[in-house]
C-alpha cells in the first residue's frame, strides 16, 4: 500500500511522569491533543507504526553509534526507566520482523542503516506509544537517529532517510503510519532544564509544516545549539518525517510551552491527501 498517516509529537518523561507539576489545563489540553492524534491515526487503519525517535543512551553508545538504526525484532520491551518515575508500566511491544526486514532492505538501497534485532525502548518511544497505541496492539517499527553523540547525522541525510522510508512504504503491501518524535528547543538534564525557546519553536514548526526543505536543511548544529539547546538536535526526527512527506503540508494541531514537561509540547499531522500523496482512506 503506502504511507497512510504521518505526524510528529513530543516526548519527555515529564509528560507522563510529572503530570501533577503542570497546570491542569496545560496537561489536560496536551493529553487531549495526543488523544486526537491517536484517533486520526486509527482512522487510517494502519498495519504498523514506524516511530522515528532519538533515544537517550538506552541502547546505543559511542562504541558503535549508528547514524540511523531500524528495529528488526519480533517484539521489543519498554520502558527501560523506572515505571513509577515515568508513569508508564513495562510492556512487551509487538514488532514485525518480516515487515521490518523488507523495509530495511529497501531503505538500504539509498541510506545506510544499522539494524537491531532487540531494542529496549526508553521514554523517547514509550511516551508516544502510551498515547498513540495505549493497548500495545499495533506492530511498532522503531527507528533511531543519532541526536546525542557527535558527530550527529547531517540534517540532509535525515531528510534522505525519510525519503527512503517513503519509497519503502510505497512498495509494501501494508498500510504504514509514521510518527517522528523529538523535543524542539529544550535543554534536558542540564542546568537549563525547563528552558524553552518559543520563538525558535514557532519558527521551526512553521517551516516544518510548510515542508520547506531548503529552510529545514539550512539550520546548522551551532544555530540549533545556541537557540534550541542540545535537545534541539532532535529536530532530525521531524526533518525525517518531512522527507517522507515531501510535497505535503502539515497542521500543527497543538503547540504550547509547558516548562514542567521541559519541552514545547507539540502535535502535528501531515495532510497526506495533498497533491502527490496517497489518500489515507
Amino acid at each position, binding site marked *: 500500500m503506502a504511507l497512510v498517516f504521518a505526524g510528529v509529537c513530543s516526548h519527555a518523561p515529564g509528560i507522563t511522569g510529572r503530570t501533577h507539576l503542570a497546570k491542569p489545563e496545560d496537561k489536560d489540553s496536551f493529553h487531549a491533543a495526543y488523544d486526537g492524534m491517536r484517533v486520526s491515526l486509527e482512522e487510517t487503519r494502519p498495519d504498523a507504526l514506524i516511530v522515528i525517535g532519538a533515544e*537517550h*543512551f*538506552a541502547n546505543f*553508545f*559511542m*562504541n558503535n553509534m549508528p547514524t540511523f538504526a531500524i528495529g528488526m525484532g519480533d517484539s521489543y520491551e519498554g520502558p*527501560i526507566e523506572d515505571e513509577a518515575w515515568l508513569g508508564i508500566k513495562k510492556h512487551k511491544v509487538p514488532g514485525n520482523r518480516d515487515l521490518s526486514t523488507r523495509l530495511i532492505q529497501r531503505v538500504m538501497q539509498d541510506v545506510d542503516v544499522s539494524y537491531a534485532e532487540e531494542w*529496549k525502548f526508553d521514554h523517547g518511544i514509550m511516551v508516544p506509544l502510551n498515547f498513540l497505541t495505549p493497548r500495545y496492539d499495533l506492530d511498532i517499527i522503531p527507528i533511531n537517529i543519532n541526536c*546525542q*553523540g*557527535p558527530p550527529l547525522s547531517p540534517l540532509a541525510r535525515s531528510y534522505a532517510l525519510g525519503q527512503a522510508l517513503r519509497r519503502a512504504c510505497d512498495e509494501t503491501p501494508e498500510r504504514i503510519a509514521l510518527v517522528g518524535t523529538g523535543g524542539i528547543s529544550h535543554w*534536558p*538534564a*542540564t*542546568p537549563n*532544564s525547563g528552558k524553552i525557546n518559543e520563538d525558535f519553536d514557532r519558527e521551526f514548526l512553521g517551516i516544518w509544516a510548510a515542508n520547506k526543505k531548503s529552510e529545514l536543511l539550512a539550520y546548522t*548544529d*551551532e544555530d540549533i*545549539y*545556541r537557540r534550541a539547546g*542540545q535537545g534541539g538536535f532532535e529536530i532530525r526526527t521531524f526533518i525525517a518525517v518531512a522527507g517522507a512527506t515531501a510535497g505535503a503540508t502539515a497542521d500543527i494541531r497543538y503547540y504550547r510551552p509547558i516548562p514542567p514537561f521541559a519541552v514545547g509540547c507539540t502535535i502535528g499531522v501531515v495532510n497526506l491527501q495533498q497533491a502527490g500523496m496517497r489518500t489515507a482512506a
Partner: protein
Amino acid sequence: MILYYLQKLLFQLNRDPATRKQYESDFDGLLMEYDLTHEEKEALGKPDIGLLYVLGVNGQLLMHYAALKGYAWPDYIQSMKDGVAQHGPVRAGIYTMVED
C-alpha cells in the same frame, strides 16, 4: 581516553544489572576495568556530580547516576550549577559543541 570510558561506565551502570552489582560490591574493581583519570575516579567516588558535568558527561547519562546516589531532581540541577561555579565551564563533550 578522554571522556569515553567515563561515559561508558555510566552507560553500563544504567543498563547492565551485572555492572550495577559490581558497582555495589566492588567499586574499585569496577573502576579498574575502565581507562579513567584520577580526577574522573574521584568525581565518581565522592560523587561530585558537578565535576562530572564539567568533565563533559552527557546529562542523559549523568541524571541516572545522580538518582542512583540519591539526588532529588532539583539537587541534581543545582549540583551542575555549583560544578560550573567551582570548576569552570564544561571541558569536553556535546556541551562544548559551540565555542562562546
